[in-house]
């Protein structure tokens, strides 16, 4: 594999008309994934904290 395939140099010599859309699509894709994963992680941490609290309460009771 060459570093840049010859067909690409031809293509980039032309106007980069569609580039913003492609890059935005890739960006949005990962923004969405990251957002969703962060959302899950935040909820997980919250639940973990609650579990720790309640387990303490159970230990005191018992």
């Amino acid at each position, binding site marked *: *594999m*060459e*570093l*840049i*395939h*010859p*067909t*690409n140099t*031809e*293509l980039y*010599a*032309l*106007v*980069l*008309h*569609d*580039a913003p*859309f*492609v890059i*935005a*699509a*890739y960006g*949005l*894709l*990962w923004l*969405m*994934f990251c957002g*969703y*994963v962060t959302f*899950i*992680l935040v*909820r*997980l941490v919250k*639940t*973990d904290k*609650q*579990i720790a609290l*309640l*387990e303490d*309460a*159970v230990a005191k*009771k018992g």
Partner: protein
Amino acid sequence: MKRQIQVAVVLIVLGGLLTTAAFFMSFYTASVQRFGTYTAEGHVDTVFDIAPSSEQVAGGVTYGRPWLAQKIFYFHVPVALASFLVFTIAAIFAVMFLIKKKKSYDTRSRLAVETSLIFTLATMITGILWTRASWGVWWEWEPRLTTYFILMILMVAYFVLRNSVSDEERRATYAAVFCIIAWIDVPISFMITRLIPSSHPVVFQPGMDVTNLVPFIAAMIGMLGVGYAVYMLRAAEENAEERLDMIREKLEA
């Protein structure tokens, strides 16, 4: 559980690296591809002229349009394929639930549908931007887009159905049955661009160049890794919630 989360995070990072590598490879090493579109006249290779805006000649090759949008193939298609695959796994878990009647299969099926819905949304977002770039419109009622949209609605309907049944066992059974029926749309949506005239490109076909295949496979593996990580994270969360409920019950008793 902590271990599960660690593995998931590592998988997401790896998936991110792989897909990003594929993204850059698609711009540098991958050759510019022709789009195969199945039209009324049979299978034709439309060389960048689905939406010609200007004729440009470079190095003796005529391009109808500088079609950078073609590079979306290296992440849009892997995400879409992953969404099909994960939904198929959800349907398999649904079948297993109906056979074995174990709650864990129902949970797995539900989590898989959820992961699949996330991937479907991702496909929709990337796809909509691509249609805007190369067809000049945000949306078109075209066979592939329509059937894929229906698939998304079916996944939403799956959760609406779940929320409206209160009995746990009945909810699980209904959801499994609906999941299997809804899955029938997957092969329809996948095959439709290959069977009937459609303006959606069919790029992935036999005889693809190695320079195209390498980034595509890298992105595919990356996306599947991300899918599995999302699924695992949700499973870990579900476990934590269950434990919380159990402790609460213990405390109240």
